Every structure is written in C-alpha cells, then in structure tokens.
C-alpha cells in the first residue's frame, strides 16, 4: 500500500457508531480516508460511483437489511462487474442473531462483537485484512501472469514443435543427400586403386610429353622464337604434372 491512506467504506446507520469510528481515527491518527453509508441502498449507490475501496466495515443490522444482504449484494456485484470486492469486516452489538462461521463462509473477512474494547483491536484487524487482500490481489495477478505465460509457452511449444518437425524433415532430406558422400568417405582405396589412378593420370602424359619434347628438340623442323617459347612452357608444365604424379606414387608405396 505504500504511504497512501487506506480507503475505507463504513456502513453504519447509527450516529453513535459513526461518531465512535471517527473518534477512533482521530485519536489514533489512523491513515484512513473513509466514506460512510447509512444503509444498504446507500452502500450500493456509493459502490456504483467509487470502486477502489480497500476495506468495507459494516454493521450487521441496518434499516434496510443486514450483513447477509450486504454480503449477497457484494457477491452479486463481484460476479456481474468482475470487480474484486475488498475484505469485509462485520460488526455486531450481540452475537445472538448471527452465525459467525456462516457469515465468514459467505465472504466476510472477520467478525467483531461491539464490546467495550473492540475498537482497540479494530485497526490491527483492518490492517491485516487489507494486507491479506493485497496479497490475494498480487497472487491473482501472479496467477494471471502464470496463466498467460503458460498459454504463451504452449503456443511456443506448438509452434516450436512444428518448426522442429520441419527442421527434422530438412535434416532427414539432407542426410539422404549426403549418404552417397558418406559412403565415399568410408571407402578405403586399396594400393591397386591408387596405382590405377596413377596409371590413368600418366596415360595422356605418355603421349603428350614425348611429342612435346620432340617438337622442342626440333625433330619435325625448326621452330621460331615464339613457338619455341610456348612449347618449352608446355613441356615444363607437363614435367611438373609428372613430378606430382611421381610424388603421389611414392606416398602410395609408403602406405
């Protein structure tokens, strides 16, 4: 509640009762802002205009009804308007006409017999009731948040499940595509395979290199400068390739 005054609605048709309450607030310097209703009808009218009371303090016998009527009225109001009704404390001159467990069951927070010392306990009970009400409000808010989170989580899970299924399907498709490569990875090349590979690389060089060398050494006639330069370049590149194949052969033999 912080430093704000408690907002109380006091339902009391007796002047004496109203004055006693005012005197209590003044004497004990209680941080209460209170509104007084002298009847059930007036209570109803006030609640239609102002709804943010922290507590309702009511006499059990009024000119136009009793505590049961008020509890019933507040219960209907709560059902119809979805306003959370604050805690209600019922006060009674004597307890002969009232069934305390029943009245608590019907929604009252506490019951007080107006004896000679009830006013001394009232502020503590009011504070406890308001604190309890605040705790309840916070709990309901938390409950609502949890409910929202639960629904959001459910939505995410449903959405996530769909996405995971899509990812799984995609992975499965990729896995199928990669299977042939996986088989290739697992393939171990035997020495014969590697020798065959070397042979296949050598075969074209067996024709290219001797012929280029014969051209270079002018077996087929004199070459001009540019022809000689180009042929020389091809020959050396061919020898380079052959050298790589020979290195490959050495590694194959080492294995």
């Amino acid at each position, binding site marked *: 509640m912080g430093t704000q005054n408690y907002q109380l609605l006091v339902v009391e048709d007796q002047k004496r009762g109203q004055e006693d309450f005012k005197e209590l607030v003044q004497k004990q310097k209680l941080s209460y802002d209170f509104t007084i209703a002298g009847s059930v009808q007036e209570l109803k009218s006030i609640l239609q205009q102002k709804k943010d009371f922290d507590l309702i303090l009511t006499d059990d016998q009024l000119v136009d009804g009793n505590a049961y009527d008020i509890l019933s009225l507040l219960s209907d109001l709560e059902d119809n308007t979805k306003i959370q009704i604050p805690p209600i404390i019922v006060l009674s001159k004597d307890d002969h006409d009232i069934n305390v467990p029943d009245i608590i069951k019907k929604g009252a927070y506490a019951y007080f017999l107006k004896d000679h010392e009830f006013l001394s306990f009232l502020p503590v009970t009011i504070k406890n009731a308001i604190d309890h009400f605040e705790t309840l409000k916070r709990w309901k808010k938390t409950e609502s948040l949890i409910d929202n989170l639960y629904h959001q989580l459910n939505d995410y899970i449903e959405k996530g499940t769909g996405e995971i299924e899509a990812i799984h399907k995609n992975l499965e498709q990729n896995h199928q595509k990669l299977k042939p490569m996986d088989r290739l990875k697992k393939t171990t090349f035997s020495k014969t395979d590697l020798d065959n590979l070397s*042979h296949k690389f050598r075969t074209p060089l*067996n024709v290219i290199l*001797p012929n280029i060398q*014969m051209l270079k*050494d002018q*077996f087929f*006639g004199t070459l001009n400068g540019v022809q000689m330069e180009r042929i020389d370049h091809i020959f050396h590149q061919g020898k380079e390739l*052959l050298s790589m194949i*020979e290195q490959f052969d050495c590694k194959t033999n080492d294995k």
Partner: protein
Amino acid sequence: MKKILVVDDQESGHVILRDVIENTLGGVCKYISCEMMSAYSGREALEKIESNKPDMVMLDINMPQMDGFEVTRHIRQNEDTKDIYIVAVTAQAMSDDRNRCLRAGCNEYFSKPFDVLRLVHFIVDKLRG
C-alpha cells in the same frame, strides 16, 4: 642396318617410338642407320623375332594374353634369340617394376613417359657398341 622391333598393343606407342627411332632430325636414324618393325601382341612379336632376328626389342610389358614378362621368357629360352637386347618400355612406374623386368630377363627398363633424348642416346649407344 640395325633392326629394332617395337612391341606394343597400343598404336600410340608405335607412333612415338617410330619418331624416336626413324626421325632423321633428332631420332636414332640421325646417328645410325636403322629400321623399325612393329608387333601388336606377344605372339606376333615372337614370330617376328624368330624370322627377323632384330638387334633390339622395345617391349611393352602390359599386354593382353601374353604379357612382356612371358615374351621375355620365350626369347631367353630360345637358343637363337636368347642374346637379343630387350628394353622394357612400360607405363608401370613402380620401383618394383624395374626389378621385376630385370629379373624376368630384360636388359634395360624405361618407364613412360620417357625422356626422348635419353632414350635416343641410349639406343644409339647400345646399337653402336
């Protein structure tokens, strides 16, 4: 005139060796008088060796039916041909191949792709000697 028999089941082998041997601008024929004969299988080679008595056989090892090793054995087993100089010319290039060829009875071994000038000078030296 010296006679060289080239034995290879592939025509490309004959084409290159024909230039190596018969080319007069840089081949063996630039230095000595010689002619080249061709055989395309082991069986044909043995027949031509028998009838022509070449001075040198340039022998491919990898051939179907009768390979170069078997041809060499036949040459060496025949009293009339056992001294013919055999040069193995093969695409096989493993270090073990050289030893296998020499053990089988070949006199020398050249792996493909061979160095043309080295082969030319080698042949010239052997045939002159």
